[in-house]
């Protein structure tokens, strides 16, 4: 995909369009294959969308044209249909706009004939969303379309038969590429909540793939200082960490250097130790199939004891902070990585945006690099698989008649936004602004709403199917990065439009973020240890699960810190099995075998 196509020197310089076609040949072929056999539902013409509703900037000197996908059959519906929905927020709007009236909703109304009314909205606060849905249920006023319904509420709705079964409509009208194919990853993993007893009761809520998959982030300047190279095995990782600590390279007080950043949970989203467990092929807290095809709880396997033994030795030698078990993950990002007392963290790709920038700000000489997670003594190299399916569901009110319209709309927007070929970059004047003289796009600064703490991209507030609701394609971000690098990068510099120019290159950390993102997604399905138990908690879990988990966490931390002996692991396993673990295993396997 990445190699440059040979160019015949005798040819005239190809135009930008030729070049796009040439260099994007492989991508184009892929797209052709995808769209070749679309059913007639999607083969309709463009219709008459007034020019002022179009996204993109075709008339600017270095602008671009956004291609609108074909309008779904039967749309726009006439007369227009009003649909109520619940939405996440808050976002800022352009002057005179509000949630029911934005560039998005105006274009959407022209394309689909749907007019969206806000039933209620909330911010990302967990308690708040429950509150709002509970009020809606209690007052018997459910919106037609319910965005990111938390599982607890979703269960309640299902129990009371308040959710529309959309299976048949889905089969008939869902977009074959941007909905059906996008949600086909991981043997139906996308549908773990949205599908109940083989019937689709809603749409999955998916996020970026490999979002929490760990990479080994390490200080290159420290590696240089101790004359070592990027570790590829657990032993090398230990040697490097030890060298960092011994050389006391951190910028805190004397002896304050920490080898590897760790947090209050061994398996977590930042400064995690899951790749170390993975190097022995196990993952605490996960259920994986054993040799007989039964699911087994990893935390009680003998390999865990080996890993705890290793971590215990490392802790004794000062590799981890003395108080690591009290730190929440963001505290390691700011207090250790950002504060430059630690040069190694096993964190996701977004570490390049979170933690590392503070490190570089606080110490401009800091140079970071990343590599693959280290391999264990037997060569195993695994990490916790991050499931892009979030534990909430989009669903429809029982008796709602226009599920087909909403599905068509979501498919249309997903195609517009997620197919890089369409060149969708938002609407001029709200999502980006045109700088007069330099002709460059101010892609971020002008609409960055730091005060509310949100990236104020107003386009986020589009109707269902736009980024604000959720992505449908979990590799969305990665596809964009690849497209920029494989297609745009080959466009000669003087022929690039302003957007291409703004998004090619970038500072060291943002380039590293792109690299890390692509790397993580490429290793996503192969290197992940997936938790195969993907349904609601079992009865015994609900009753005894939290006390068993507490016991587990406490025992593991005590073993690592030396409070307890390594052999306490055996009595923990014993307690776990007798305290409900065996029953949980039976229940889990009952579900597991019923699945197949």
């Amino acid at each position, binding site marked *: 995909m990445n190699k440059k196509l040979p160019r015949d020197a005798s040819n005239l310089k190809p135009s930008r369009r030729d070049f796009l076609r040439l260099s994007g040949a492989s991508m184009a072929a892929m797209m052709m294959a995808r769209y070749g056999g679309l059913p007639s539902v999607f083969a309709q013409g463009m219709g008459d969308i007034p020019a002022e509703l179009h996204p993109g900037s075709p008339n600017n000197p270095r602008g671009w044209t956004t291609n609108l996908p074909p309008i779904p059959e039967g749309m726009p519906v006439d007369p227009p249909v009003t649909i109520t929905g619940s939405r996440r927020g808050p976002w800022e709007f352009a002057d005179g706009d509000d949630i029911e009236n934005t560039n998005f909703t105006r274009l959407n109304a022209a394309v689909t004939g749907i007019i969206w009314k806000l039933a209620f909205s909330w911010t990302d606060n967990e308690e708040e969303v429950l509150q709002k849905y509970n009020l809606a249920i209690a*007052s018997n006023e459910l919106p037609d379309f319910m965005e990111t319904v938390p599982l607890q509420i979703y269960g309640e709705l299902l129990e009371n038969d308040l959710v529309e079964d959309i299976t048949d409509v889905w089969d008939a009208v869902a977009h074959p590429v941007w909905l059906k194919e996008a949600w086909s990853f991981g043997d139906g993993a996308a549908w773990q909540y949205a599908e109940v007893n083989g019937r689709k009761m809603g749409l999955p809520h998916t*996020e970026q793939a490999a979002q929490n998959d760990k990479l080994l982030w390490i200080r290159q300047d420290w590696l240089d200082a101790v004359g070592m190279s990027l570790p590829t095995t657990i032993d090398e990782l230990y040697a490097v960490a030890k060298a960092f600590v011994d050389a006391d390279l951190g910028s805190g007080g004397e002896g304050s250097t920490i080898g590897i950043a760790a947090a209050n949970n061994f398996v977590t989203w930042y400064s995690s130790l899951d790749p170390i467990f993975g190097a022995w092929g196990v993952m605490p807290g996960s259920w994986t199939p054993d040799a007989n095809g039964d699911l087994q709880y990893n935390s009680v396997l003998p390999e865990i004891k080996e890993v705890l033994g290793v971590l215990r030795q490392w802790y004794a030698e000062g590799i981890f902070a003395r108080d690591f078990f009290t730190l929440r993950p963001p505290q390691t990002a*700011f207090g250790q990585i950002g*504060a430059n007392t630690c040069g190694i963290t096993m964190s996701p790709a977004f570490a390049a*945006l*979170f933690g590392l920038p*503070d490190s570089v700000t606080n110490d401009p000489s800091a140079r970071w690099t990343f590599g693959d997670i280290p391999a264990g003594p037997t060569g195993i190299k695994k990490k916790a698989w991050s499931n892009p399916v979030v*534990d909430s569901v989009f669903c429809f009110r029982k008796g709602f008649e226009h599920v087909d319209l909403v599905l068509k709309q979501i498919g249309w927007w997903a195609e517009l936004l997620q197919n890089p070929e369409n060149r969708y970059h938002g609407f001029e004047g709200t999502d980006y602004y045109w700088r007069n003289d330099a002709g460059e796009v101010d892609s971020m600064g002008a609409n960055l709403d730091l005060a509310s703490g949100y990236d104020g991209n107003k386009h986020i507030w589009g109707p269902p199917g736009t980024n604000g609701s959720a992505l449908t394609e979990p590799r969305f971000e990665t596809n964009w990065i690849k497209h920029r690098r494989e297609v745009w990068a080959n466009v000669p510099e003087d022929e690039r439009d302003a957007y291409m120019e703004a998004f090619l290159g970038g500072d060291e950390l943002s380039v590293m973020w792109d690299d890390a993102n692509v790397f993580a997604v490429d290793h996503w399905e192969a290197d992940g240890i997936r938790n195969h138990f993907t349904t609601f908690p079992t009865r015994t879990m609900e009753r005894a699960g939290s006390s068993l988990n507490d016991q587990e966490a406490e025992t593991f931390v005590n073993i690592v810190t030396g409070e307890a002996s390594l052999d306490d692991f055996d009595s923990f396993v014993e307690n776990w099995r007798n305290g409900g673990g065996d029953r949980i295993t039976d229940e889990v396997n009952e579900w597991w075998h019923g699945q197949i």
Partner: protein
Amino acid sequence: MIREQKLSSRLFDGFNYIFLTAFAILCLAPMVHIFAVSLSGRAPATAGFVSFFPLDFTIENYQEVMGSRTFLRSFMISVARVLTGTSLNMALVILTAYPLSKTPRVFKGRNLFMWFFVFAMLFDGGLIPSFLVVRSLGLLNTLGSLILPNAVPIFSVILMMNFFRDVPKELEESALIDGASHWKVLWFIYIPLSLPAIATLTLFAAVNHWNAWFDGLIFMTDNANYPMQTFLRTVVVELDLTNVGIDPRDLQRLSDRAIRGAQIIVATVPILVVYPFLQRYFISGIKLGAIKE
């Protein structure tokens, strides 16, 4: 003997001073810390380097806060709420307390009304019935939903009523003999004599309105209409990302401590400014009316 007593009492005073000073500093410390954070650069603030003095001094955070439409809108909603809500509260408190301060002989059925109010003070309908009532009245997403449900703060009515009872009866009687109506008596005798109590209760009402966040959460179905404390709460509560997908928006939220510091300071200042003006009434006001004859 006497000297010894003096010494011990001096020791006691000294200890008291030290203890109270330490306690005052302890109360002030978080505020000073947040103030320092709000004036610091983003990187040292998020790394947790800032204690009581700003690092990388900047007023950028305040510029950001004042330039944010979301924040300013919620701020203005809160200001409107305090102004209208407090006036309404005080008007109703005075109008309710005056008749209730009369004896049952003057005001027939006074005890029945009193019980009615006390009952409403002790028991309320609960969250969902309140929501249903507000919704049926068409008040969702309006300022009315924030000020009408608690328009009569009954506890304040009882304080006010007891204060009115302390006003010497002779004053009222002489006014009545001169032919004044109850309106005139209230306006020219009771209110001027009760200014300390009115100031105190006004402060209570204003602070309550300023700090209230839960009703905003419930009655504003569109979060564009959140009053400031509701808005702040959604911004300041720390996220637990262990089980949630990471969104760059959320990362932003985790790393903008300095901005949040500035928001908290901006939200606190108006009420800090009001305090000194009402403070002198506040101290004498709260104990007045507490003792009945």
